């Protein structure tokens, strides 16, 4: 069975077995290594990707669900101006995730910023459980996202001017 979907802005096909997980597909067939296998049970969040703008655990998504849908990983986001806001925000807040989870933290920040222009801690609280990281505190992630939102706002205004 052929499945077609949009991966990082490009139309893609795959004829892998429909029960193959999205995680294995994007790592093995498309060599996107920012997504890591962790528990393969949907708990740890290290395999998170954006599926139609929602954060999902790619280890739980079989590829027959993909038809006509949009998948984004941090490799794609890194090419956009939006990534720059997050990069600067993380830097300003002194928030340095490790390579293992950096991709997820950026995707999570991006999802929050797509939803709220000025995110509050309460808005973000649910998002921190998406990744099982015991090395950075939610507090510093919140400040990093808030700092990113400021950079994004500044950039938006600069365009309007």
């Amino acid at each position, binding site marked *: 069975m052929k499945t077609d979907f949009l991966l990082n802005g490009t139309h893609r096909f795959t004829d892998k077995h429909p029960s193959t997980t999205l995680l294995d597909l994007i790592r093995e067939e498309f060599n996107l290594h920012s997504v890591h296998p*962790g528990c393969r049970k949907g708990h740890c969040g290290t395999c998170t990707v954006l599926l139609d703008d929602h954060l999902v655990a790619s280890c739980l998504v079989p590829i027959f669900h993909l038809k006509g849908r949009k998948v984004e990983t941090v490799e794609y986001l890194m090419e956009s101006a939006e990534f720059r806001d997050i*990069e600067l925000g993380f830097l300003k807040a002194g928030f*340095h995730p490790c*390579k293992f989870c950096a*991709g997820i933290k950026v995707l999570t920040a991006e999802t929050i910023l797509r939803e709220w222009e000025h995110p509050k801690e309460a808005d973000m609280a649910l998002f921190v*459980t998406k990744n099982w990281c015991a090395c*950075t505190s939610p507090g*510093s992630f919140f400040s990093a996202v808030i700092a990113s939102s400021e950079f994004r706002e500044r950039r938006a205004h600069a365009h309007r001017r």
Partner: protein
Amino acid sequence: MAKTRTVRSTLTSRSQFVTDLFPSEGVFGWILRSPVPKGTLQKIDPPSFPEGSGILLPRDVPGDLNLMVFQDKFPLMTGEVIEFLGQPLGLVYAPTEVEARSFAEATVLSIDPPNDASLRPIELGPNTLFAFDELMWDTPDGSEALEADDPNPGDPDEEALEREVTSTFFLDTQSLQVQEAVMAIARWKEKDLEVLVPAIWPHGISANVARLLKMKTGAVQVHATIPGMYHDRLLVDSLVISCFAALLAHKTKNTASVSFGHDEQILYGTQQAPISCTHSLTLVPSLGLRSMDIRIQIDQGAFPLFTREIMNQALGSANPGYRCPKGKVRVEIHRTSGVPRSVSHGFLSGQIQSITEIQVNRVAHILNEDPLALRLGLIDTSRKPGGEKVLPLLSTLGGISDYGRKFSSFEVLRRRGTDSPRQPSVRRFMPLRGIGAALGFQGNGFSKSTEQSIKSKISLRMNQDGSVQLFAGTTPGSSAVKSHLRDLVRDTLEVKDEMIFLFPSETAQMPDAGPTSVSRSISIIRGLTLQACESIQKLRFRNPLPIVVEKSFSPSRSFTLTSPGGYPWIKPSWASAAVEVQVDPVTYRASVTGIWVVVQAGSILNFAQARAHVEGTVIQAVNWVLRGLHRTPKIEIHFIDDHGVALVERKSSTHDLQPLGLGELAQAVVPPALASALSQATGQFFDQIPITPEVIHRYMEVPGP
């Protein structure tokens, strides 16, 4: 200028995870494990294997079946006596991992049950005692000094005032349950065997593989990939899978991969040892501590590893720095039927310090004193190194957390709660609040005698074209340390950034730096690099290039176990912490409402990263005590110098004070502060960690001592 580390540079860095290198061909192994904790293996009946599959047993090992970890050893697999649940019995292999696993599951094992004696539940005691060591002191000058302070020397009433506080503690394993698979890949590079694995001590692995396969150490190259989330288990677990992968590659002459699945990690992954401790302090209110008697029992599983290091750490941490003329610390290592335990450089020390700190807070409670004020009186400021540095830590902590005021108000609340037999109904549903404080240190690296046996080495080479190559093993993935070493070379030798080359952690290129961690790299490897740069600077205008300088680390004096003065480590860094909590009186759930940490760790190389580092361990410590992932509030971290002056945030220069490790400090100070805060909130003394809602409920329903 140092390069700025952005999230983009992290994501695009060259370092690789072993899963990124997953081989598409070769053979895959799956470890066949014992389903029972004790017994005698009679027979292994595997299914009939198709071409390209099979099983490796102890008899297939050409060399030494025992793996060495420092001075201790354990067998890679057993052919007869089973000592723990999940002990490897063999390695089943097939062209894919799924097949290998299914063959392993289809293998029938005949195991004779153990005799009655070994079926008895194991308790730490004389039957399981593996080794012990003691530290005793009786300082005549200490007691003279005390008598000099004594307002009424020889007053018999003082004797009557002597109090003894004895508690028994139980600390459960500290490791978080890991959900991340580790894998080792062994492949042939002509006659050499290359092993790719997440590791913090590649040379340790290469030496073991060489002995296992009877090869020359130089012919086994270990390439350390970066670890994912947790590092502590990499010392033992990575060694085991590397040896299995190497054995499989050796037998099949093919690329071989062996992984330690995420589900296996939970059952059989190495964890930190559970500890039980009887802690007794005697004190006279106006004179301070008179004696301490501490007995620490450590469950090291079926094959005690790192035993000397564990004893040094425990002996050196039992009294973090209190004035006490007389004392005894006894450390016992017990052999049980658990999976062999790991050791991390700082965690064990932190756990032992936590016990004494909880006990000191208990003493304060009994004497009805403010715990911070009590510590100011008890600290031995003459103790070297570091005694005098401790006082500013306490005063700064008091200031930033508003400790004294909060402590007294929570105390008033608690008393009102416990004094009146009938609480007003509204108050019964009000959260119970408390604050706790603690003091502690981190040794940085292993204890002196272990460091002496490791003899970390680095080498630095200046070439004819002026380029500099630094061969210094650091933790794979620790970019902060690497960029600091680069700055150090650039500033001392005045060479351009593009001319400095650092090498990844590969045994083929790198001299043995011992098991690495950020704190060891900062305090030991950095020092060696600086010495090497200075030597090259002296030689470069006199001698022809290239110049190669090697430096190795050997602490001058080893720790003698006869006195409590001094620490068994090279240079400790210090911290104090206060934790404020709230306990829901209906669900008994505890939540942390404030954390303040004061850190004294030499100069700070990068404030943002140092803060992230401390924050990370604070969260791990909170999660250990309260069990499970908890949301933590913003953590306030202050960095001070030895005199208590706040360090200003700026780019540190390479000529500043020596920087020290700080990543394990929170492990020593946050658990006791949190446990004591819970005690103040609930009015119960907690002598065990973790403290889950069930534990709080039980202690509050059935009040203890």
